[in-house]
């Protein structure tokens, strides 16, 4: 498959994933899809992560950006992402269906956070296992941009909170913010994978 063809394929799977998850989510929120079928469809749409990750791997390979460490990272991250969706929804469902006490709420919070910790571990292992020094140096630079972005946004938002001009945000937002920063880092570097 050529660079362009594999990029298009990857793009289509990203679009399918976003349409699948946000589409079923929106239909569920608007009560167009109801009952357990809507929940099953919503959760099933997250299975699109699998072809999306595989298409991205093919696109990276077509551009010469591939390594065994990157392949392991993709696999670990995909498993953690699917576990995150399953455990997050299970935790929220238990919290809503029961009236959990303090101990159970702590356990539910930890269960929901556990797959994210595995995602962070997958990133750390990628940096440790990547043997290609150029790819590793790019990852380090992107991580620094992401960290700078997160610290800047968190500091700014924290002071907006201090002066009561912005609503409080849960601390778990740090991880998706860092991931956005990683994307910005790739754009700043002119990453051909972008």
């Amino acid at each position, binding site marked *: 498959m050529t660079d362009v063809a594999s990029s298009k394929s990857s793009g289509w799977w990203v679009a399918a994933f976003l349409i699948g998850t946000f589409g079923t989510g929106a239909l569920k929120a608007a009560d167009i899809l109801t009952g357990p079928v809507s929940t099953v469809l919503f959760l099933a749409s997250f299975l699109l992560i699998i072809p999306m990750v595989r298409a991205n791997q093919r696109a990276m390979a077509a*551009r*010469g*950006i*591939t*390594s065994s460490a990157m392949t392991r990272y993709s696999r670990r991250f995909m498993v953690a992402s699917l576990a995150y969706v399953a455990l997050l929804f299970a935790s929220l469902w238990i919290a809503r269906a029961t009236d959990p006490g303090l101990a159970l709420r702590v356990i539910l919070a930890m269960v929901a956070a556990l797959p994210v910790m595995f995602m962070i571990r997958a990133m750390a292992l990628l940096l440790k296992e990547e*043997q*290609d*020094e*150029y*790819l590793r*140096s790019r990852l380090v630079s992107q991580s620094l941009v992401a960290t700078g972005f997160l610290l800047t946004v968190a500091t700014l938002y924290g002071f907006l909170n201090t002066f009561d001009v912005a609503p409080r945000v849960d601390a778990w937002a740090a991880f998706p913010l860092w991931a956005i920063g990683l994307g910005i880092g790739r754009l700043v570097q002119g990453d*051909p994978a972008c």
Partner: protein
Amino acid sequence: MLNNLKVLRAMRDWSQQDLAERLEVSRQSVNAIETGKYDPSLPLAFRIAELFELPIEQIFTSPSKKD
């Protein structure tokens, strides 16, 4: 850092992928080194020199001597 990796590769009729496989790095790395976007570490520079059977300074130009 300037280098004549592209010329040396062309003399052997190697593609970037061929060179990448011989050096056990990604094609993207070879491209970044060739275009001067990335300066290889000393161990990788030695590997490149050994592969082409040339001294490092015949492949890479010292930044202080580029003029």
